[in-house]
């Protein structure tokens, strides 16, 4: 049994190594910010349109002088949104700069995490009508099954909320902003998107302010006929795959 498991593991590891291709290596060396080695990997078996976001978790990486290139003090990377709508999916891993005397990364390995919403039909909530808000959580089965509540506040509710605070502590909104109460104990919300009157997706930025979340967009003031799309991370749509790259020449 142990032998079979071992063989399976070897087969899996080989598959992992073959499943990525090095696209680009960028060794950005500076005395200023963002001094890092980035390796872009192509995933030939996955289309870019199926990946909404990705991140790479590196477990080990060494150059030809034996230097450890993993930045153990860095925060765990967060999922980065994928804006590429054609070709194969690609991801990028970030390492420490190797010394100038190094010539290659002997090996880098870890896991690639892909957020693929289509893999779980119950992970996208599209709300045809969410404005004007009434302070009650909007209703959708995907939100409910993931334990997520989103409630859009009315201007009167925001005023009432602000009345409890000192002047300096009050939440002030720009014309394009909306205040919401979000309850997401399992951290399932991956992204919010408005769908405008023409059916075009418009990016939504969310920031926490006091006990509220503020939604903003570059696309102008949200209109009553706009829709809201909420992408949720679930066990089904979050795919992790091991990767390993060897002998990556340094530029």
């Amino acid at each position: 049994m142990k032998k079979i498991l071992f063989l399976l593991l070897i087969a899996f590891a080989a598959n992992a190594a073959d499943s990525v291709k090095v696209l680009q290596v960028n060794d950005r060396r500076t005395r200023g910010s963002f001094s890092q080695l980035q390796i872009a990997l192509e995933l030939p078996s996955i289309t870019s349109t199926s990946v909404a976001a990705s991140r790479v978790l590196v477990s080990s990486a060494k150059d030809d002088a034996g230097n450890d290139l993993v930045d153990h003090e860095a925060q765990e990377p967060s999922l980065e949104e994928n804006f590429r709508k054609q070709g194969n999916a690609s991801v990028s891993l970030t390492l420490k700069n190797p010394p100038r005397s190094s010539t290659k990364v002997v090996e880098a390995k870890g896991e690639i995490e892909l957020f693929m919403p289509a893999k779980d039909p119950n992970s996208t909530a599209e709300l045809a009508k969410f404005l004007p808000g009434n302070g009650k959580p909007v209703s959708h089965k995907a939100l409910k099954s993931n334990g997520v509540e989103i409630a859009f506040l009315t201007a009167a509710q925001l005023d009432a909320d602000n009345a409890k605070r000192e002047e300096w502590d009050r939440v002030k909104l720009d014309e394009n902003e909306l205040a919401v109460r979000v309850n997401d104990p399992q951290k399932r919300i991956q992204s919010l998107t408005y769908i405008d009157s023409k059916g075009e997706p418009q990016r939504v930025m969310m920031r926490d302010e006091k006990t509220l979340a503020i939604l903003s967009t570059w696309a102008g003031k949200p209109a009553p006929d706009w829709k809201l799309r909420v992408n949720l991370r679930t066990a089904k749509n979050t795919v992790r795959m091991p990767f390993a790259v060897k002998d990556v020449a340094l530029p």
Partner: protein
Amino acid sequence: MFRAILAKKGWRLAVGSWRFLGGYGNEEPANRQPATANRKGSMLRALAILLMLSLPVFGQTNVHVELDDVTDNRMNTDMFTGSLELRVKVDGTNMDKATAARVLIKEARDDKGNDLAKDYKPADFFAREYNNGALTFSLTSPARNASKVKLKGSIELYVPSRDPGAMVKIEKALSKPDAPLSSKTLKAAKVDITLLSRDAYVKKLESRKIDDSKAAAIREEGKKHGADPKEVEMMIELAKALQDNPNEIPANAILLAGSSDSFARVYRIDVLGSDGKPIDTPQRSTSTQGGDSIMTIIPAADPPPNASMQLYLLTPKSKMSTPFELTVELP
């Protein structure tokens, strides 16, 4: 020797100023004359230096160049080549009189002997009021195993106050569209720029459109240079996408046309309101095709009909150059 004396007196003399003043501090020893034979000359030179330092003339500015940041951006792809980006701080006495500055690189080599200036293109003059006067320039990436880069070049300052011919004011400049801006000084400086009417602008854009024959010529040129046909097509599509659209240009835009050589001789063009002060022009751009340029200046508010224009010309007298040398430790 004089440098040591000056240093004791608290004066700093950059390499460039030394050469400018006729010194030989950086010449090879073989080129120097024996000290005894040159004592009289040295004394005269010292006197000249002290006299010149005491004059409040900009020509004696003491330019000091200091490395501020260095980024070696190394890439392994064919499409994006890496580069060595450098930022230097430039200061010195009388620097406040300089409107703009730029770095000109004469020689740049890494310690493995690679020439990093082979593709160097001088940057345009950069206004001193931005980035605390820091200047950036770009060189070819050094060898991976290099540790140092040695640079020789000069800091070129634009000091329009040094030359009365560097500032040209055109009264009621917006009143005569489709005629060249008229001034003897502009003519002498070989600056031929025409204010375009809206109709002339639209016609000019029409003539610049990348049609099938122009696209074919670009493909042919690409073929001659062995460029990847896919990349050439990408470039053509990009150029088409970047073409100016007259409908996107507001009605109050000031449109100027001329040869790219003419525009290269101009540092800046200000539009002056009725009070003689520059009006706010938050958007400016210049597009060049072949040897032809169009400058678009979009003011924040409609300029008055009697608006004049102030052109700052890059005349030889208005520019002064100070050599420098720098050794950069690579990150």
